[in-house]
């Protein structure tokens, strides 16, 4: 009996020691949670659209641009200091609060970096390589577009002469959160955007499963946008060409019913123009109960222009915006084909190929003007094709986050420079061309914790 007991004891302790050892403790606690390690894990991260495709980094630019105004009483009721302050381009913008534009973009960049590092570690067969490349391309694209968006708010406008010295944004390229953030130069920032977008374009499929996912077309469109900002019109044109080569369709506004609260449908597959979906929150200052579209913008549309009614509606005495491609109050800030046409038109105009520029404009306008009122433009009858394209950009890309970027880059050309003004509670505020205030300050929490250089306001 004694022997049996000893034996049992030894056996049990032995069991505890060996079989219950490492494997026993390696069981994961929550079945729903995984340590991301497979391609589908990273795809699932990229598919989290309420992280990856919303709250894009455009709020400050939309607030600060010249597309709308708000009345004094609506302005004074705003709760968020950054909205109040950004509207009047104040020196102190955030009053120590956090900033969504900055935070959410870097949050997505961390997701992209985690996916990229994880995907590189996976060894797989050649057949799986395409699947991996697709996810890797998505991650690269997400990183690139977020860097791009951040650069439009927190870096000086790209200037070839000073880009190597102007401070850019922190380029987070690894998932290790313990690494200190430092600011790269503007040049490096743009180089990184292009590098990531090019790599993405090479491995992404042409047709994504859903338009929330980045595609080859999206990467081309992003490259075209980036080169346009950098003044590299040849590249802007060639990537716009590359993008349009895969499809040229636009929505015909003659078929759009402008009577509902929002003119466009939320069924994105029905909108052939969409290339990549991403949106910006409709923040308090731009809600339909506050916003009043700018008179000088509204004055640009002629009587046959369907956009006047598709984009805008009336709410009591104010003109409100109802033309988001998202089909609701949220602003579309993703990539759509109309913008690519306008990029190509501008690049052609700037490079002297006015015929081609007008051809693209005509194609766009045919889809925007009433069938009766549409008259094709003729290049030879126009003094300044470029000015026409620039004006068309403003009319077409309303509240898409693009206007702020255009103001920044066009201010360098005296022909297009514009001084913005606001009147709030009997005070006059203005934003002069090329003012340092076209570069928003970096949020205080970032400065406090990583001690990077702040952008000057004066």
């Amino acid at each position, binding site marked *: *009996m*004694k022997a049996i*007991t*000893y034996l049992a*004891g030894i056996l*049990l*302790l032995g069991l*505890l*020691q060996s079989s*219950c*050892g*490492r494997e*026993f*403790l*390696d*069981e*994961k*606690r*929550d*079945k*729903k*949670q*995984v*340590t*991301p390690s497979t391609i*589908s*894990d990273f795809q*699932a*991260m990229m*598919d*989290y*659209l*309420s*992280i990856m495709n919303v709250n894009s980094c455009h709020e400050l630019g939309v607030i600060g641009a010249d597309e709308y105004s708000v009345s004094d009483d609506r302005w004074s009721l705003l709760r968020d200091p950054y909205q109040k302050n950004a509207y009047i381009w104040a020196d102190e913008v955030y009053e*120590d609060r*956090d900033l969504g534009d*900055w*935070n*959410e973009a*870097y*949050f997505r*960049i*961390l*997701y992209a*970096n*985690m996916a990229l590092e994880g995907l590189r570690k996976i060894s797989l067969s050649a057949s799986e390589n395409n699947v991996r490349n697709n996810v890797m391309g998505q991650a690269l694209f997400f990183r690139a577009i977020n860097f791009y968006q951040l650069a439009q708010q927190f870096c000086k406008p790209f200037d070839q002469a000073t880009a190597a010295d102007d401070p850019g944004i*922190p380029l*987070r390229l690894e*998932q290790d*959160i313990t690494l*200190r*953030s430092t600011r790269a130069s503007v040049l490096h920032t743009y180089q990184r955007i292009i590098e990531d977008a090019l790599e993405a374009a090479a491995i992404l499929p042409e047709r994504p*499963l*859903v338009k*929330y996912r980045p595609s080859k077309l999206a990467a081309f469109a992003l490259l075209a946008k980036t080169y346009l900002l950098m003044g590299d019109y040849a590249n802007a044109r060639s990537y716009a060409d590359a993008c349009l080569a895969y499809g040229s369709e636009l929505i015909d506004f003659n078929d759009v019913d402008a009577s509902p609260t929002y003119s466009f449908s939320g069924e994105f597959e029905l909108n052939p123009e969409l290339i990549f979906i991403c949106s910006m929150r409709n923040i308090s200052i731009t809600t339909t109960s506050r916003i009043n579209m700018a008179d000088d913008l509204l004055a640009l549309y002629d009587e046959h222009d369907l956009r006047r009614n598709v984009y805008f509606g009336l709410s009591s005495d104010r003109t409100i915006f109802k033309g988001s491609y998202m089909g609701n109050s949220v602003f579309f800030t993703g990539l759509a084909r109309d913008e690519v046409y306008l990029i190509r038109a501008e690049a052609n105009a700037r490079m002297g190929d006015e015929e081609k520029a007008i051809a693209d404009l005509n194609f766009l306008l045919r889809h925007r003007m009433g069938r009766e009122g549409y008259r094709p433009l003729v290049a030879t009858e126009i003094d300044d094709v470029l000015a026409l394209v620039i004006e068309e950009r403003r009319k077409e890309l309303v509240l898409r986050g693009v206007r702020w970027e255009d103001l920044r880059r066009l201010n360098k050309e005296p022909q297009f420079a514009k001084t913005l003004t606001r009147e709030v509670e009997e005070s006059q505020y203005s934003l002069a061309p090329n003012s340092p205030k076209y570069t928003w300050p970096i*949020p205080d929490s*970032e400065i*406090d*914790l*990583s001690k990077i250089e702040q952008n000057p306001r004066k």
Partner: protein
Amino acid sequence: MKYQYILTAVCCIVAVQNLSIAQTLTGKVLDENGKRVAGATLSLSSSGATFMSDSTGNFRVDPRWLPDSVAISYLGYRTVKVYIRSANDFPLSVTLTKTLDELPEVLVSTGYYEVPLERSTGSFAQVDNKLFNRSASRDIVSRLEGVVPGLQFDRRDLDERGEGSPQLRVRGVATIESEAAPLIVLDDFPYEGDINSINPNDVESITVLKDAAAASIWGARAGNGVIVIKTKRGGYGQKMRISLNNNVTIGDKPDLYYGKDRLPAEIVMAIEKELFGRGNYDEDPRTVLPEYVELLIRQRDGQIDDVEFAEWETRLRNTDVRKEALTHLYQSPITRQSALNISGGSAVNKFYLSVAQDSYQQNVKQDGGNRLNLNLQNTFRPIENLELTGGIWYSKQKSYRNGISFSDLGPIGSEPPSPYLGLLNADGSAAAIPHGLRYPYQLEAENDGLVDWMYRPLDEPALTDNVSFSREMRVNGKASYRFLDLFNINLAYQYRQSVGGGETRYDPESYFVRDMVNRFTQMDGERVIPYGGILSISPARTNTSQLGRAQLNYAQTFGKEHQVFALIGGEVREQVQTAQPSIRIYNFDSSNLTGTNMYDYKTTFPTRPAGSARIPSPSASLSSYTDRFLSYYGNAAYTYRNRYTFTGSLRWDASNLFGVKANQKGVPLWSAGLSWNMAQEPFFKTDAISYLKLRLTYGSAGNVNNQVSSMPVVSYTVESRTQLPRGYVVSAGNPSLQWEQVNTFNIGVDFADRSQRFRGTVEYYDKQARDLIGEDYMAPSTGIIPRLTQRIRNRINYASVYSKGADAQFSIGVLTKGVRWNIDLIGGWTKNAVTDFNTQETASITAYLLSPPPVLGHSRDAIYAYPWIGLDHSTGMPLVETGGQIGMDYDTFVKEFRAEDLLVAGVTMPRFHGAFRNTFSWRDIEVSANVQWKAGYVFRRGSISPGQEYLGPQNYHMDYFRRWEKPGDEAHTDIPAYASEPNSNQSTVYKWSTALVEKGDHIRLQDVSIGYSLRRGVFPKLPVEQVRLYAYCNNLGILWRSNKEGIDPDYVNVTSPPARSYAFGLQINF
């Protein structure tokens, strides 16, 4: 149900098998005066049989046990050892002599071993069977309140109905984000189930392990203290004992007038009339308007004349919704408990068997439940030195909740009901009340081809059937083998499974169904949702755990001076928790169990009165959690000359919680202790004191946080827009995570005087909780952003919290002859402070006011408030200081106020607590009353805000009648005057100021218990051994409180505090 029958059958068979005890020899136990001593314990040394003398002092011995020596012990008497050669020694009589200088030996259990209190070094607080049974409550936990020093009940998080379990705190706090509740150990195994499922009649005693020497053996889970529950057992050779316990508890109806967030009908009607005059009411079908406003609208629209209006108005003014609710919705809660237990044993086996059945009705009509417990434990000793034990526990709980409570009468959501709401029509039928949608809109429903849309609260209980249940089964087995007289090897295994769930059946006529049908009725009259019953089954949750343990004990005495006790062991434990998805069936017919779930859940349908929605679909969410632990432990004690005891323990734990690196490491947790029995020293010559022991311990225990991971972790859900799986990052991963650690220093002294009338313990402790898991802040560009919705937190081991305090317990026998009067006093003092933590600097003031974050240097229980200056002399409005000026610029004040300038207005957990228990007994009558005291803490009360009663009923408060009305009032009130234009900042500076922070100090008479026993020793004709009659009155009321508002500081935010209850019971021992 099937289980119960099988179990009952098994129980009976086993019990019958044990009833047969062979022919026996009889002896008797006498005291010095020749009186028979009942209840003396006899234990045979070689057979190990233990039994007791009966009420006539007789005991019986099986001749097969002889020869053997028997030890006869009785509380307060010297133990006598007698050697019995054979049956010829009978009849035998043993005389015991009284002892005054020896303490009765109390064994305390840690779950791994039992140790005589005398030879322990740690801090143990024991609640013995008698103390435990002073209370007649259905549950175990509430019986511990006010009897254990250092154990606090935290009721700050109870919901409005006062429901939910209080959180237990053993000696302050030792964590920030992790589990803060003490570990519950039931019959030597950690217990993760519902403690309310345990039958209190099965409990023998409870021990609270408070310091490191006592608790460290539990390692990584002992950081918050350990509560060890020991259940009743049979004894070898014990005569069969049957005990039947029956009681009924009747409570008062709730006090609905306790909460002061209300105004009388007259005032509310005046407010509503004024608001109506101002055009404040939006006459939209979606907006529920109060009944009186509807009346005003009908008068305005000429639907009723002035006479009818006046009649209605008077009727409303004279109706009191609380009175209505008390009459029609509430009842006296009644709980009935009955329990039967049988125990006994023979030379080779012992058993314990119990059955208990409880049922209760809540104070809300149609709410209640029941519980069934079965318990069977059997121990065999097939050969000498080997003991095999098997046990089965089964419990089944069911509760139903169909009643309508006061808070269900509100128009929508959590809005309170109008004070003039009536529940009956003039003809006595159930009245419809404004609820969900506008009343006239609902009235029109039937004319629009919809079904009746009215909400009649009194009809509802009969139309819904909401039941929730839980079942729990525990099975365990133990084998214990003694060898070489020194060693004892124990193997133990336990399997536990609990299943819980519930369902609601809605009758087609219930408001829930009718409302849903109408909302989804299309313009063409098509019903998207069928007009039939709905069955909604909530997710079934299963919790399964298994534990295996092997342990070797060693005990040896060298000569007369050295005693050694040691053990080593290993333990492996797994707990799996799963949840199934919920189910919803429409067009459900409960008579033939048909229904369907085939619906179009994707289409968005237009709904009435406005908007659009999808058909509510059951969730497809599943979950499964697995917790695994692997532990090795050891404990050793050495006692020299019964005077000096040294103890030490060591434990190593690993789990699957933290991911690979930490698992491999594990963390050793240890303790060391020393005790000195001073009164045993030769130099100790004081006659007054017979027992004096000093104790000193130090050691570490751990705490678990299962929300963190060393690896990056992604959690999966489904993206509704794309129907693709989506993953979000829960944790960026931290490879160096480990247990939180709590280091406790304890010093204590136990003493008793020679007469044993005065006994006590005083202890001081100092707890350093370090390596606490907390969030650390990083630059947002890292992607670690604390305030995003789907954020990734960066949790690391870095924070620390410090607690210190003292516990004391005294027992004083004031009178001992005739009437015995005993006073038990307990007291505790505790304080804590966060000593390392990074509070987010940008944390908003609102966060500090609503749920304060941990702040360096402040208590975890700190409460923050705006400074309060007082009211303005001429306007009666709160004064604030802005830019060095005292004035009333609230907007600037609030805008410029920084979180760091908030005042710490106190702590919300009592720094001092105590209880004072008096017990009087005379012959067989015993009366005992417990008075509890709490002090050194504060709470925040509600009040009005200037003019805010015009913004909605949630702002009503009886302070309306005590507010500033004329200059000079500010001398005696802080309640601001009426403001015609409410300003939210003006309200903020008052509502969250120190003016509304009240002292919580109070003394309450918690309970009184009265018992009377009839014993066969006194009444020889009694057909049973003993009959005990008892009464127990609980929640008797507050004797003194510091606040003048009539608020019970333990129940600040509830609609009504627990009402008084009276229990009457009868216990019969056969």
